[in-house]
């Protein structure tokens, strides 16, 4: 058994780019769903328009990197408006479906042959990260302790990524303990009551959608920056589902819930997968071949989610009392 | 106001054994119930209650005293942490609600007491779920009591006014002919005319041999018609006695009944 590999890959996943990207996406979802009660199942669309905004701006329109970022942010904001204006009046579960539908529309359009010249079809776009890595202040080398560590490229990415994650957490923390956050939480509970108290529910929902969308869109940037490419299918419903899973794992409406949730999520994924692969390779599980590890790993990860939530339905940071109130 | 205070009137009793002395042939009795919703927080702190065959019992008390919780606990809707509920000698502690229904217990909850997406008629049908054969007959009966409901039998309960819902809830409980009926604030939200109807109805049912336990905030009214009453405070019996005794007890009046209705 190659425990060293299992442990290093697991640790890398916990603090690596996956946690940054999924963590940010989940922070956005947490604002939408955890605090405001908006069942926005279209988070992937925010990531997609941002990633594509950056990519298309740089590769197709030949704009500088920073302009790409601005365009990506603007695209996310516009998406929030387009999505919000018609749908924020809907009941929560209807909103969920409409946002899924909208996200799928976005993905299908990005992936279509029809718009291939702009968005690059199913292969997406690449070649827009040069400027980002050109800003790297880390000289080449290996950063870390022993087998744990990253090269200069990744460490730069992670430095920026985790800063943004922490900054987002700080913003969420400040906002959610303010009266503004109180209004959001009240909307989550009963918007009519909030209306009766003179708050413009629509405007708050829109602000929430914007904020969460923009944080989600940062996730889109980081996905593109790390992988050097954006592709339509990564921004499918699965991504949103995972973001939700992460939020619930960490504990809804908790500032660090999404970040810790993302870490647990990836640790589970990597640890289970790599341990299983090693077990099979070393003949501990005779009835399986290494090529069958894939599905069984997923199955185990699914089982892991189930067990985690059965054991701790409120998530890591969640409050059991809230769950008790929520139960039907 | 706490139970340990020495009794100032005949109505107040603090002695468990004295209270339970009359409980021998009780139809339904609770012994030292401790129950609650959240872990670690008990709402009922050892309340006792018994009701004899064909008795009408009133429970009054301040808001949040645990009256509804007591009814729910008896009916198996709140987890009982310790203590016992006996129905005709049978231990029914934490038994599921539907099995109690088949043992002849009926219950009208205080809130959320209709099925919003079902029509009035279907709501009533659900009331007679275990005795579908009787539906027609009973429906005619409640239709006479609440003509407003009969007119609208196809309207969805979710669109009804507060009072209309309360009527549906009451009517639903009248669909079966239970031998023990638990009513949680049946008169709340009803017009004075219908409040009368509810109280008269309760008495009438009781006369016909049904054991009734009624929680009311229309306390004076309730004490007037009940055989015995309990005053519940902070999950404990604060006072018990006959309806008359309680209604005239100055302490009870000051703390729980107020003087408005007398004026």
């Amino acid at each position, binding site marked *: 058994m*190659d425990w*060293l*590999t299992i442990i*290093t*890959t697991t640790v*890398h*996943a916990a603090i*690596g*780019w*996956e946690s940054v990207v999924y963590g940010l996406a989940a922070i956005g979802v947490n604002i939408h769903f955890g605090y405001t009660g908006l069942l926005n199942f279209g988070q992937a669309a925010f990531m997609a328009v941002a990633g594509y905004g950056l990519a298309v701006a740089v590769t197709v329109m030949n704009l500088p990197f920073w302009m790409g970022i601005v365009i990506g942010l603007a695209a996310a904001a516009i998406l929030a408006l387009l999505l919000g204006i018609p749908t924020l009046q809907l009941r929560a579960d209807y909103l969920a479906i409409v946002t899924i539908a909208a996200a799928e529309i976005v993905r*299908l359009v990005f*992936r*279509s*042959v029809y718009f*291939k010249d702009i968005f690059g*079809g*199913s*292969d*997406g776009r*690449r070649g827009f990260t040069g400027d980002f890595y050109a800003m790297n202040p880390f000289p*080449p*080398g*290996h950063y870390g302790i022993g*087998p744990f560590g990253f*090269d*200069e*490229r990744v460490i730069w990415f992670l430095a920026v990524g985790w800063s943004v994650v922490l900054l987002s957490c700080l913003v969420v923390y400040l906002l959610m303990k303010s009266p503004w956050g109180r209004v959001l939480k009240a909307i989550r509970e009963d918007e009519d009551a909030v209306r009766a108290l003179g708050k413009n529910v629509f405007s708050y929902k829109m602000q929430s959608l914007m904020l969460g969308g923009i944080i989600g869109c940062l996730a889109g940037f980081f996905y593109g920056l790390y*992988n*050097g*490419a954006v*592709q*339509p*299918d*990564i921004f*499918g419903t*699965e*991504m949103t589902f995972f973001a939700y899973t992460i939020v619930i794992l960490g504990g809804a409406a908790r500032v660090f819930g999404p970040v810790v949730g993302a870490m647990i999520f*990836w640790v589970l*994924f*990597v640890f289970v*997968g*790599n341990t299983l*692969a090693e077990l099979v*390779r070393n003949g501990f599980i005779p009835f399986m071949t*290494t*090529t*069958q*590890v*894939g*599905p069984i*790993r*997923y199955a185990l990860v699914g089982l892991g989610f189930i067990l985690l939530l059965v054991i701790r339905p409120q998530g890591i940071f969640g409050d059991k009392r809230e769950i008790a109130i929520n139960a039907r | 106001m706490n139970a340990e205070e020495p009794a100032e009137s005949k109505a107040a009793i603090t002695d468990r054994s004295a209270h339970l002395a009359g409980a021998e042939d009780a139809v339904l009795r609770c012994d030292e119930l401790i129950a609650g919703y959240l872990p670690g927080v008990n709402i009922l702190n050892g309340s006792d209650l018994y009701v004899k065959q064909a008795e009408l019992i009133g429970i009054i008390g301040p808001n949040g005293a645990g009256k509804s919780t007591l009814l729910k606990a008896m009916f198996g809707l709140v987890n009982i942490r310790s203590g016992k509920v006996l129905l005709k000698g049978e231990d029914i502690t934490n038994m599921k609600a539907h099995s109690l229904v088949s043992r002849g217990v009926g219950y009208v909850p205080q809130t959320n007491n209709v099925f919003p997406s079902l029509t009035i008629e279907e709501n009533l049908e659900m009331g007679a779920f275990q005795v579908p054969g009787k539906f027609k007959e009973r429906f005619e009966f409640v239709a006479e009591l609440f003509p407003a409901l009969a007119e609208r039998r196809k309207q969805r309960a979710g669109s009804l006014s507060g009072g209309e819902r309360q009527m549906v809830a009451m009517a639903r409980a009248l669909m079966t002919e239970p031998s023990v009926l638990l009513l949680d604030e049946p008169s709340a939200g009803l017009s004075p005319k219908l409040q009368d109807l509810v109280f008269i109805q309760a008495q009438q049912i009781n006369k016909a041999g049904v054991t009734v336990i009624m929680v009311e905030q229309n306390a004076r009214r309730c004490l007037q018609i009940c055989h015995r009453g309990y005053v519940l405070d902070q999950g404990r019996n604060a006072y018990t006695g006959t309806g008359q005794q309680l209604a005239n007890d100055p302490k009870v009046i000051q703390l729980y009944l107020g003087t408005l209705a007398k004026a």
Partner: protein
Amino acid sequence: GGGGDTATQTSQSAAPASSAPAAQGDGTLTLGTLLPQTGSLAFLGPPEFAGVDLALKEINEAGGVLGKPVAKFDTDSGDTTTNIASQSVDKLLAQKADAIIGAASSSVSESVIDKITGAGVVHFSPANTSDKFTTIADKGLYFRTSPPDKLQGRVLGDLVVADGNDTVGIMAMQDSYGTGLADQVQKTVTDGGAEVVERVDYDPKAADFSADVAKLKAKNPKGIVLIGFEETAKVVQELVKQGLPADKHKWYMVDGNTSNTNYIKMPKGTLDGVKGTIPGAAAPEEFQKKLLSVNKDLEDFSYAPESYDAANLIALAAEAAKSDAGVDIAAKLAEVSKGGEKCTSFKACVDLLKAGKDIDYEGVSGPVEFNEAGDPAVATIGIYQYGDDNKYATKALEYRTGNIAG
């Protein structure tokens, strides 16, 4: 890769840029596979894994590479909807893989190519067809044995024209494989004087294909070109249902869907006379038998030859370089693929190498001659025809060899 940068140039520049330990060989050639075990392309996984396994079995039977048996780690590439591939690459790099065979999907390869080549490891795909990889910045470490779209498209297009179909309909799976091939077929067919009356790019995950087929039906083309993977069975089903059967219209298939297992449950004669193109100079039957000895459950053989060739080429290049370091292997890959004494198996080739000869590996998937970009330059396409039993004859009607570029 990178247009001009050749393998030899970057073998110097890649090493310092990467901090991965794999840059220095450790004496054991370690292969990693990054192939789909899960996700939408999971059906492509088993044959690809089998191809690599078969090659490895033969290599190790022949004494391994550099005197040691070749090690191998299998990982899942998933599909683009998850980020499994990136995880898998991390694991492979941690396990000191010298070369990684995968991924099946161009999009997945794209998302990990920087990571793999950045670590000085050879990235060798048996199935990527996107033309992006020709120009991608890869430090000269990216190679592929994938079926040459352009040539196959030309051959197929010419076949369609030669069969006298003046009106042609194309159903293509909407991804880089499908659209790339469809573009080439469309161009060839149009140049040859026939008209493409309808081209439908369909989403392979769509709930059903009746609307897509209805579009073809509306134009009633003489020849129908089906480009895709195994979902073609659903398309065939629709074609028959909507009255465009193979006995009234001429159907053509490509390597992704010319299969002997996919259609056998269909009524006899459903595919009678249908033609399909498959790259590779050899009749696939014997090779398939060998594959079945590795994995008896195989039902499909797509990209198995390419995977097999990839593993063999890497092993030969390592032998030729006398090193198992990724950059050294990359530097020799083009050399062993062309110009020299021809050989068709690892054993034969390695014997020639040991005898100090220059070799030219001829693969099961085709002659495999790498150009500067690490793409195959020459290929052979076989044209096969289905019989009454919905299986294609093991002998090709015809083989065409040519330059892929052009």
